[in-house]
């Protein structure tokens, strides 16, 4: 039992905006009242629901590939010493699993979503998540280039495709699905890409990226998954890609969708020399279409490692940078590419990218529909979120930073004209309440009675970066996990999965196809339930409004 008293509470899901009130906790949940137990005096502090990261890459074959590919990053990264309670590890761009748990919790984040998991290596992802302490976890299954599904769509077998998707989600023990460069990664298997939404994908006559996007969004809604389709659009990172993004959004009318790392999809211009921000145009469309949510995928200057299932884009990035390139195509399902990258303030393209991420966060007027992410570790590392929060809260600091950009960048961005400054209430929305709602996690992202007692308590400070980087206390499941920068408890979190229902006869169809196209036996393909540590099955109860 525990009582937090005297703190200013920011609980947007319950409309509480900075009121001083007590939060009571028993058995890991927020309750109406408690007698006795510890009291945390939060005078002069602010109380937030624990952070929820809706899109990050912290576990799995791709990230583990990146770790092996970049020992030079680990060499200079923060080290985690072994102690009585904590395991050794390394921070940096691709932190080790234990360090990932400590870093997220140490920043006040208590739930993270690993955004890209192939079925074939899902066992591996769950093993890594098992070794990621403190935080609760969920993951999205890569589905936009699954050939079993694409082949069914080619034959016009929508129902079968739907049951296949449901079967795959259940088999992989994931929470939702993600489509990455739909069709483009499948085409990359023969060195091609899919750049036109309405042109057939290499090797198909009927299926084009648009078919995949529209059908998957519909399937997710019909299966009642709590989180909408998570979508990484075609033409990521390419100048002029805003037209693809807008075309894609139009296809989604009538269904829910979550647009991942929107910053990377909001560019105008014809080439690298004329690239410019199209955040205004994109935000205008987005603001009037409430079926969509998005995360920022903001960029910060410095070292990053780009990791994505978008194989063809990574080949281009390798050619552009001349740096190392990792690629791993996953049979019949997806791909993965890795290129270390440095965002430079002096580089015109990078300057535009930096501005676009912030512009979208400022121009999309409903904070319940855009969430703070950097597409870790693509745009910047997750442990740099407080730097972005600080910029969102201060227009003058943003303008000062804009002045340091190359002259040529100034006419291509809108950032200097934007006066909006985020309030603490809005920060609580984009870091916790909003993503929790978009994920359909009712017990997360708020401090009402019955919520999971995942709470971040910060010393109030005008310097937002300092305030949000070093929480005074972090509670996870009602226990003090972090106190003044020190890990106090490393109790493992849960992993949320969905098990949408499907027609069991689909296995009779899948088995022979699988044995023809895969290289392991069908029985070995699904992830065993024992492998998922602290598994909690979430309900598939979403219903499309009439």
């Amino acid at each position, binding site marked *: 039992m525990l009582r937090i008293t005297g703190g200013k509470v920011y609980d947007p899901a319950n409309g509480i905006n900075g009121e001083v009130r007590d939060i009571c906790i028993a058995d890991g949940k927020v309750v109406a009242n408690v007698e006795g137990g510890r009291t945390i005096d939060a005078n002069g502090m602010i109380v937030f629901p624990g952070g929820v990261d809706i899109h990050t890459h912290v576990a799995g074959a791709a990230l583990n590939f990146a770790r092996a590919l970049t020992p030079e990053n680990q060499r200079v990264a923060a*080290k985690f010493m072994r102690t009585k309670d904590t*395991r050794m*590890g*390394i921070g940096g761009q691709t932190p080790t699993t234990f360090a990932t748990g400590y870093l997220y919790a140490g920043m006040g984040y208590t739930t993270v979503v690993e955004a890209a998991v192939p079925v074939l290596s899902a066992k*591996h992802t769950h093993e890594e998540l098992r070794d990621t302490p403190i935080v609760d976890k969920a993951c999205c299954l890569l589905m936009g280039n699954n050939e079993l599904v694409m082949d069914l769509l080619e034959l016009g077998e929508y129902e079968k495709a739907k049951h296949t998707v449901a079967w795959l989600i259940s088999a992989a023990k994931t929470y939702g699905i993600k489509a990455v460069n739909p069709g483009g990664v499948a085409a990359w298997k023969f*060195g091609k890409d899919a750049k036109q939404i309405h042109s057939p994908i290499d090797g198909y006559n009927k299926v084009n990226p648009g078919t995949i996007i529209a059908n998957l969004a519909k399937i997710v809604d019909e299966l009642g998954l709590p989180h909408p389709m998570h979508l990484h659009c075609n033409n990521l990172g390419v100048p002029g890609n805003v037209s693809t993004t807008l075309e894609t959004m139009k296809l989604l009318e009538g269904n829910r969708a979550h647009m991942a790392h929107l910053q990377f999809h909001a560019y105008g211009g014809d080439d690298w020399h004329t690239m410019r921000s199209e955040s205004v145009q994109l935000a205008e469309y987005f603001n009037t279409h409430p079926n969509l949510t998005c995360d920022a995928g903001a960029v910060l200057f410095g070292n990053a490692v780009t990791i994505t299932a978008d194989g063809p884009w990574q080949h281009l990035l390798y050619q552009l940078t001349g740096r190392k390139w*990792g690629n791993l195509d996953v*049979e019949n399902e997806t791909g993965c590419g890795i*290129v270390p990258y440095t965002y430079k303030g002096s580089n015109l393209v990078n300057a535009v990218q930096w501005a676009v991420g912030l512009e979208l966060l400022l121009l999309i007027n409903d904070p319940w529909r855009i969430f703070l992410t950097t597409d870790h570790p693509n745009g910047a590392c997750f442990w740099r979120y407080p730097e972005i929060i600080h910029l969102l809260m201060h227009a003058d600091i943003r303008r000062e930073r804009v002045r340091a950009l190359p002259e040529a960048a100034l006419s291509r961005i809108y950032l200097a004209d934007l006066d909006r400054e985020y309030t603490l209430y809005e920060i609580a929305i984009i870091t916790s309440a909003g993503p929790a709602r978009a994920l359909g996690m009712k017990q997360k992202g708020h401090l009402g009675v019955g919520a999971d007692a995942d709470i971040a308590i910060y010393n109030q400070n005008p310097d937002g970066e300092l305030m949000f980087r070093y929480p005074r206390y972090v509670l996870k499941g009602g226990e003090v996990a972090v106190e003044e920068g020190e890990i106090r408890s490393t109790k493992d979190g849960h992993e949320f999965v969905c098990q949408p229902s499907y027609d069991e006869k689909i296995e009779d169809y899948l088995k022979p196809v699988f044995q023809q196209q895969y*290289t392991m036996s069908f029985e070995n393909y699904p992830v065993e339930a024992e492998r998922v540590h602290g598994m909690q099955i979430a309900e598939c109860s979403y219903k499309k409004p009439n």
Partner: protein
Amino acid sequence: MGGKVSCTLGEVKNRADFILYWGGNPAECHPRHFTKYTIMQKGKFLPEGRKGRTMVLVDIRETMSVKAADIFLQVRPGKDFEVVTALRALVKGNRVDTALVEETGLKLEQLQDLVDRMKRCKFGVIFFGMGMSMTRGKHMNSAALLTLAAEMNAFTKFVAMPMRGHGNVAGADMVLRWTTGYPFGVNLCRGFPRFNPGEFSTVDLLVRGDIDAAFVLGADPGATMPQPGIDTLARVPTIVLDPKVTHTSKLARVHITTSVTGISSPGTAYRMDEVPLPLRPVLKSPYPSDEEVVRRIIAAVEKKTAWLPLPATMASGVM
């Protein structure tokens, strides 16, 4: 710079119309490899199977795998790096000195023919074995070959993959990466991971005699290490966990017999393409599994007082 451009084995099965083996002998060392994953399989885009694929073998001698190959290129020992470098130049259309090529035991026409075939294929794959990665030039050879595969993607689809073996070596590599950030050669003596192949790799530590105890699991270094390394294992307390008697167990102070993973105890093994496979026991064994023994050792170590005086907050921690 290179990197690693690869795929899972199913992609090779479904798509690879050009398969190059370099410094490896899969017919004898990976006996199920040809039939299960590569040349003999019918794939989604290769309905003809073997007929639709070209197989090239590069090695220093004629092995059992030659019979399976369409083209065999015999390289002079120690000249792999030179051949790869010449290939990289030819791929880019650069001029290559005939005399230099001939030092490798091959002819320029042979290399040009190889490059033409590589560029013509739809999906090419290079598998490389220890005859490439562990001979003169070592990691430089692997890096050059991986870079060749990466650069080929400017012309057509190309990937490369090491022919890994030795039980679950890929699995050990994976777990080390997510727990320490590095794949091998990790030193934890300072309480956090450090990586330096050549300094902290097992072979270097053993040869230098830098260790004062050894714990050997799923390996038989007594059979493969250089003699000074084997001498170190015999000198220090060596503990071996193995289902059977091995060269290492014979020189060890302690040999704990364990059950065979995948036959008598469950677990996970990673294929050489880093795909995890569940292992299910089919027989019962009177012996404990490796995992059980390791857990019991950890529990016993946890009861001991710390060997270093630690600050109060750190007490006797075990990783």
